[in-house]
């Protein structure tokens, strides 16, 4: 249990490549923070700097108010779970979990208590005497988590712990990590490239790109109020549709002109735009696939499109449509909302009219790519 504070943390590699630029973040005690971003964004590097596995080129890292820049990993009182598990192949599961406790010269009966307790929580009691190679991927990851658990470390670091598991197991382990977090009640820093993991696990999410923080916020915040185009497109699956559009102010009312349609923007977002004093201008408009609805037919506020691909996902249908000027959009419709007749009409080449409302529109500046309302 500890707070972690990163101040102007920087990582420059020997070949002058800057992996992390001025990274500033306050992580509260017992908080679950997720670093998320595409590969090469510096999220793992940042985590490894907190762990002490990577030298810090600039700035300070504090754990519980103590600057740990020059401390060895073993003196930082942190536990870490690796993507490839990093179990010691020549030791049994028991010895793997007990390794850190033995290094601390803990009495054997206390070690026994802690190891068996952790094993019980993780459901690996039956495998304690096996070697790691005799375990499946999921079991190995449990052992790795167990190894980190018994330490009662101040901070719990996880570097893409679920990436090596298959999709089904990943969902299961994700739920278990949520439970584990409740049980351990300590500070977690979790690195992933998967936005679903980030959204479901994190109290707060740090979205990174090219070594810069793009946005820090709760899952709801980053989803509903993305600070910029990158965050908007990164969070949410399928990703947000973004396209050039014209924001028009007519008689105090806002409209969006896109693909020949004129969509009213005079609701919540309209009043926010008015508050900010935004005039007519070019914008990049964002609309999430699930917020787009199918219109009944041609209308002023409906965009005419052609259906390219129809992906039936079971509970929902993903419609890949193309507008007249060749922009591809994705529309996500719950299957239950489609009538039999509508479903029959979802063939390639069919003409579909789509529309969306004011409150689900996102406006980005084409130059700075910042969110005009919340950036």
């Amino acid at each position, binding site marked *: 249990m500890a707070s972690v504070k990163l101040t102007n943390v920087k990582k420059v590699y020997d070949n002058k490549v800057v992996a992390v630029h001025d990274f500033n973040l306050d992580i509260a005690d017992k908080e679950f923070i997720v670093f998320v971003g595409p590969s090469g964004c510096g999220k793992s590097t940042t985590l490894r700097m907190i762990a002490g*596995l990577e030298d810090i080129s600039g700035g300070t890292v504090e754990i519980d108010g103590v600057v740990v820049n020059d401390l060895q990993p073993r003196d930082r009182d*942190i536990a870490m779970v690796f993507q490839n598990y990093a179990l010691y192949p020549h030791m049994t599961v028991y010895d793997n979990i007990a390794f*850190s406790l033995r290094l601390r010269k803990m009495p054997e009966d206390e070690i026994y208590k802690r190891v068996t307790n952790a094993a019980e929580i993780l459901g690996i009691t039956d495998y304690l005497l096996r070697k790691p190679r005799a375990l499946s991927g999921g079991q190995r990851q449990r052992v790795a988590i167990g190894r980190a658990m018994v330490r009662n470390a101040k901070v719990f670091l996880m570097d893409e712990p679920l990436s090596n598991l298959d999709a089904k197991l990943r969902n299961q382990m994700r739920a278990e990590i949520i439970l584990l977090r409740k049980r351990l009640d300590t500070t977690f820093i979790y690195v992933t490239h998967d936005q679903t993991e980030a959204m479901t696990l994190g109290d707060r999410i740090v979205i990174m790109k090219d070594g810069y923080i793009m946005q820090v916020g709760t899952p709801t915040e980053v989803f509903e109020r993305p600070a910029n185009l990158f965050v908007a497109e990164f969070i949410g699956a399928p990703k947000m549709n973004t396209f050039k559009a014209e924001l028009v102010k007519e008689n105090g009312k806002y409209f969006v002109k896109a693909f020949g349609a004129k969509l009213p923007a005079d609701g919540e977002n309209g009043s926010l735009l008015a508050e900010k004093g935004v005039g007519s201008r070019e914008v990049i408009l964002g609309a999430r696939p699930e917020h787009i609805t199918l219109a009944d037919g041609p209308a002023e506020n409906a965009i005419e499109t052609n259906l390219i691909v129809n992906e039936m996902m079971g509970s929902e249908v993903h419609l890949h449509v193309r507008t007249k000027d060749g922009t591809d959009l994705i529309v996500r419709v719950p299957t239950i909302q489609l009538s039999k007749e509508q479903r029959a009409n979802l063939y390639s080449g069919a003409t579909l009219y789509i529309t969306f409302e004011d409150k689900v529109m996102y406006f980005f500046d084409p130059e700075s790519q910042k969110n005009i309302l919340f950036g």
Partner: protein
Amino acid sequence: MADLKKLSEKTPENELKKHIGLKASRTIGNTLIYILLIIMTVIWLTPFVCIVLQSFRCESTYIVGYVIPQQWGLDNYKALFQTDFPIWYRNTLITALCVSVLQTVIVLCMSYTLSRFRFKLRKPLMKFMLVLGLFPGMLTMIILYRVLKDLGLTQANAVPGLILVYIASSGMGYYISKGFFDTLPKSLDEAARIDGATRAQVLTKIILPLAKPIVIYTILTAFMGPFGDFVFARYISMNTSKGMNVAVGLWSWLTPDQVQYKYTMFCAGGVLVAIPVTILFLCLQKYYVEGVTGGAVKG
């Protein structure tokens, strides 16, 4: 053509014929290979067998025109212990054991360092050692002798001198074990360091147990070098019997004036030298093979 077509049809008879044909050709091939191997083995083993047989010969101590002894006995072995042979043997064993321990420690530490640590001169150092290793060690002989003489480590004191010479350049033999260490995932080191291990503990508790074949290979090669060395040992001991190792000592019996009295003893000494090495190899050959081939491909 018609015959070929007939043969290529998949009738039971054809399949059987083909099967018999394949079997016959494989048997012939195997037989030829075995004959070749047997011939090679005989050529290989003949000198050893001759030496062993000579060592048990009692009727004459000189070279004779036959192989099988007429009178068998352990006279030669007993006579060995009336000479300086035990001293040579002790010298050799002490040298080889010390070198194998020290050299193994140095090589493994060196390999681990070069495999895991990143420091400025790492690459230049590796290249430098590679180039340095291309020069034959013999080139250093004269200057080494001067240095050791000044230190008083020649002649009767040749053993510590020899140990020094053998381990001095041992760090350069890091290639194979570094190659093996490189194949062990770095995250193991990192996990151990986070678990609270020092670098030394990472090496002894995680890396070395995983690199057992390489450790054994390193010990064996470190042992074998001084155990069979002749040139340096001869040079540094300089005709002082107390400072000789087995190879040099036994060789001194082959001078024209000695050989007629001591040829069979020479053979007995040779057999005694071979025994510990043979036992060592028989016990550890499994690891040795793994070690030599392991560095290259094992993941």
